[in-house]
C-alpha cells in the first residue's frame, strides 16, 4: 500500500505528510511536480505550503504541473486524493472540488489547535472516524476562507459533502464554517486544517489526524 505525496516548489508539509503515511502503516512515496508518473501509488496527498509562492492565486500555477494532469485524470477514475491546505487550494483550482479559498477575513496568518466536527465519515479519507466525531488538529493558513456561491453551498450540504466543519469560533471567514469538502464519489477530499501534523503526541496537540491516513489504507484494501 503506497501513499504518494507531491512536492511542488514551495511545498512545506510534504515531509510531515510522508511521515504520517508511514506512521499509519503505508509506504510513503515522494512524487515530484514535474514528473507525470505516479509510480504506482494507491493514493495521493497534495501537501500544505506555498507552492509557487501563492503567485497569481494560491494553487493556480501548481494546478498545471505535469503531475496534476495525471492526478486529475486518475481522480476521475477513483484514485483517493487528499489535498491539505495548499493542496485543498490546488484541488479547487483544478476543479476537482467546487468553490475557492481566499484570504482569511481577518487578514492575519492563523496557527492554532482547531476543533472540528467530521460530518461525513463515508469518504475514502474519513471512514475511520465516527459519525460527527469531534477532533482537534492544527490549523495554519493565510488563504483559508472557503467561498462558493449559495447554490453550490446548498448542494454540498444537501449531498452531505461537507466533510469537516469548524467548531467554536469560525477562524478564517469560511462560508458556513466549512473546513473540508469532498467530491460526489468521496475519493477526493480537500481539508484546510492539517491532520499530518497530528499523528504523534511528541509533535502534535493530539493524534486525531491519523484517522485520515488509516482510513485511506482501508479504502484501498476494500477496493
Amino acid at each position, binding site marked *: 500500500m503506497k501513499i504518494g505525496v507531491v512536492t511542488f516548489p514551495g511545498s512545506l508539509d510534504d515531509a510531515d505528510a510522508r511521515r504520517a503515511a508511514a506512521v499509519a502503516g503505508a509506504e510513503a512515496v515522494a512524487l515530484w511536480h514535474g514528473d507525470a508518473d505516479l509510480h504506482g501509488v494507491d493514493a495521493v496527498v497534495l501537501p500544505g505550503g506555498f507552492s509557487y509562492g501563492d503567485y*497569481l492565486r494560491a494553487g493556480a500555477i501548481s494546478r498545471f504541473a505535469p503531475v496534476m494532469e495525471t492526478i486529475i485524470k486518475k481522480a476521475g477514475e477513483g484514485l483517493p486524493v487528499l489535498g491539505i491546505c495548499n493542496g485543498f487550494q490546488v484541488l*479547487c483550482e483544478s476543479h476537482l472540488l*467546487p*468553490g*475557492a479559498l481566499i*484570504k482569511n*477575513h481577518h*487578514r492575519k496568518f492563523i496557527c492554532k489547535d482547531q476543533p472540528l466536527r467530521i460530518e461525513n465519515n463515508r469518504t475514502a479519507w474519513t471512514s475511520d472516524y465516527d459519525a460527527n466525531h469531534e477532533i482537534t488538529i492544527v490549523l495554519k493558513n493565510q488563504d483559508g476562507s472557503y*467561498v462558493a456561491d449559495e447554490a453550490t453551498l446548498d448542494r454540498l450540504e444537501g449531498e452531505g459533502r461537507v466533510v469537516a466543519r469548524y467548531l467554536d469560533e469560525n477562524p478564517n471567514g469560511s462560508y458556513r464554517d466549512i473546513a473540508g469538502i469532498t467530491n460526489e464519489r468521496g475519493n477526493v477530499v480537500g481539508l484546510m486544517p492539517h491532520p499530518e501534523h497530528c499523528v504523534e503526541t511528541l509533535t502534535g496537540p493530539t493524534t486525531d489526524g491519523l484517522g485520515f491516513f488509516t482510513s485511506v489504507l482501508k479504502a484501498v484494501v476494500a477496493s
Partner: protein
Amino acid sequence: MARVVVDVMLKPEILDPQGKAVHGAFGRLGFDGVADVRQGKRFEITLDGEATEERVAEIRKAADTLLANPVIEDYTLHVENGQ
C-alpha cells in the same frame, strides 16, 4: 507590437480582505470620504506581432483558464495597439 491588457477583479459578492486593509490605511493617512476599496490584478501581455482576432481569442482563453478563477473573479480584456 500590440499589447493585450487583462484586468481581473474579485466578484462583487466575494469579500476582499486586501482591499479592506487598503481602505483602513486610507483612513489612517487622512484620506477621507472613501466608501470602499477593492483590489484587483492587471496583466499586460505583449504580443510578438499584431493583435489579430485569433491571437486575442487565445489570450481570452488564457484569461479563462489561468489569469482569472471564474468561481471568484471576473475579468475584462482590451487591446492597446501601436504602443
